[in-house]
């Protein structure tokens, strides 16, 4: 393989396919995190939740013999972890970033501990049976994009369905409107009589479940094994991808795909023997992410109410009775996007 083969389709088609594979767990984690952040909750703990999802997903898939059961269990595990995170940040006003870091340390350690205690020697644990690639009948024969997008593991097709679902949910539903308002202008949501705390908890739960699912996809579907440290920073990459994608589902997915393609590209550059030192090549996707985030974050910015816990003043009914009617601050609701 020489540099001249860079212009051949036989280089780009497998590259694109690899990009889709690398992006798949990232898209899951990023979509969930986008919902969470739009509601005003920055969950730095998705790295830990992905690790938890990986170990739980792997263990359940290993013991039950079915991959999808493992994925389901991983989503539930991520959900439980995010409920803990949500309780601390929403109902106890803990700082979201610090709590997220604590969750990371806790869950990463828990995953290592679980694996080390359950399997006394890795020799016993063979690879899980791989889920075969499914070629979509007509679409996989399309030129250029056929193989990369439509000859993949079934979980990739699940992502194709999830992206429009998240888009509709976030941008074109009442629930989505409340979630977006909760992130920009929580007082408006509260004045509208919506329980903003439960709303945020729902958003962060979705984020946690998706993160758990992302970790399980990596372990169960893509690798077929749990390896300590296998998440390798993907949770943090997902945080960057959410910013990169401007918190909008389609763009987040595109950003994840770009990251995946660049990562796959640098690996193929190494194979071609190009005389660039490997540490620089390996850094390419991360450098790209930093550069884009530096330019994007300046313009769009995080939702206004991020990392600001909404006070629990009127949470309980008795407290609500004490609030005089005219102290409620009314802000106009954000304009609905077309």
């Amino acid at each position: 393989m020489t540099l001249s083969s860079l212009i051949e389709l036989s280089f780009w088609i497998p590259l694109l396919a690899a990009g889709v594979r690398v992006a798949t767990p990232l898209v899951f984690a990023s979509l969930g995190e986008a919902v969470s952040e739009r509601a005003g909750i920055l969950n730095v703990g998705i790295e830990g939740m992905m690790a938890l999802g990986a170990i739980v997903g792997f263990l359940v898939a290993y013991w039950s013999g079915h991959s999808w059961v493992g994925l389901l269990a991983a989503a539930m595990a991520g959900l439980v972890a995010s409920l803990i995170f949500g309780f601390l940040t929403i109902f106890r006003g803990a700082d979201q970033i610090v709590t997220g870091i604590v969750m990371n340390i806790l869950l990463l350690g828990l995953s290592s501990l679980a694996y080390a205690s359950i399997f006394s020697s890795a020799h016993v644990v063979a690879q899980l049976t791989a889920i075969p690639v499914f070629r979509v009948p007509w679409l996989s024969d399309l030129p250029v994009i056929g193989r990369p997008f439509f000859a993949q593991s079934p979980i990739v097709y699940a992502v194709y369905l999830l992206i429009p679902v998240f888009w509709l949910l976030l941008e074109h539903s009442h629930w989505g409107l409340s979630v977006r308002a909760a992130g920009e202008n929580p007082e408006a949501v509260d004045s509208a009589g919506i329980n903003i705390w439960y709303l945020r908890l729902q958003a962060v739960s979705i984020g946690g479940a998706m993160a758990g699912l992302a970790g399980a996809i990596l372990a169960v579907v893509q690798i077929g094994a749990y390896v300590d440290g296998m998440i390798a920073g993907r949770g943090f990459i997902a945080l960057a991808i959410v910013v990169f994608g401007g918190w909008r589902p389609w763009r987040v997915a595109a950003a994840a795909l770009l990251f995946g393609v660049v990562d796959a590209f640098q690996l193929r550059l190494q194979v071609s023997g190009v005389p660039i030192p490997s540490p620089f090549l390996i850094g390419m996707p991360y450098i790209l992410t930093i550069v884009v985030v530096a330019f994007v974050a300046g313009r769009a910015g995080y939702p206004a109410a991020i990392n600001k816990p909404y006070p629990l003043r009127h949470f309980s009914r008795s407290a609500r009775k004490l609030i005089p009617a005219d102290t409620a601050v009314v802000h106009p609701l954000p304009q609905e996007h077309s």
Partner: protein
Amino acid sequence: MEIKNLKRLQTALVVGTVSVLGTTAGWAKDAKVAYIPCGQVNDGSWSEAGYDGVKAAKDALAKSGTNITIDYTENLSPSQAEVAARDYATKGYQTVVLHCGTFANAAYNAGKDFPNTNFLIVVAPKSVKNVWTYIPAMQDISFVAGYLAAKMSKSGAVGVVASFNFSNITWQAEGFRLGARYGNPKIKTYSNYINSFDDAGKAKEAAQAEIDSGADIIYSATDQASRGIYAAAEANGDLAIACYSDQSNLSPKTVLASALANIPLLVENMVSDSVAGKLVADKVYSVGMAGGIGELALNPELAKTIPPEVAKEVQSLMASIKSGQIKIPAFSEPGQSEQYDLNGLKSK
């Protein structure tokens, strides 16, 4: 008179107790050994191999009357490893084993401040005072693995996926590529570095990149991330050669063979010598096949697919390397194996 006798009694008692204590301290030579690896002690790979070595040293030393207790701390980053090493040294551990190539600075720094503790560090530039480096010269057995891969390759291309681009690992990767050329001068060899010991996902994509370029046998020079390589090989119906430990049962249809470094033997010898005080000052313990480091374990299921003449050639190659007839060079830069003149391998 009574007081003088009392004083003599006191002196006798003190002298007697001290001498008894002194001799018993000489008999009960207990030592504490600490083990600090990169990964977990049950990872089935590098870290577990080192731990097996420390345990073997304990058994060997127990036979000669020395009892050692082993403590370990897993999964540390290089800065954490330095803290742990210092901590163990402060607590009076006799030997601290740092079993990770990235812990070199931790070993040297801790060694400076704790001159009474022996530090053993794997794959470091030099041995200085109380810090000794031990190096499994993996290029020997990697060469053999490359030879086997080249003979078994149907597509005429093989590849290696390695963790980090530093000395021991690059020697392995380039040794494999050189061995492949020795087996088939027309072979194409690829290498990829993923900068991680445990990112199995990246290892999978790295292997896939090589497979997409035509390779059909991938050598793993990563630790636990090798799982990703097996996943890629399985998905494409290709083969892999594992490293550091026999990983045939991790992926029975994919792992053709495993390049055993016999790391346990190396670590066992180092720890035993360290506790017994037999380590030679400033010596770099680089041990290759001549010293027992390097065996090829075939996967029993796939061994039948190897043609008998290839199996014989592999055996005679290993014998030549063990006897020193063939010397495998250590390449520190990726790609150097492609330019090396194969005639230079036979020592004159």
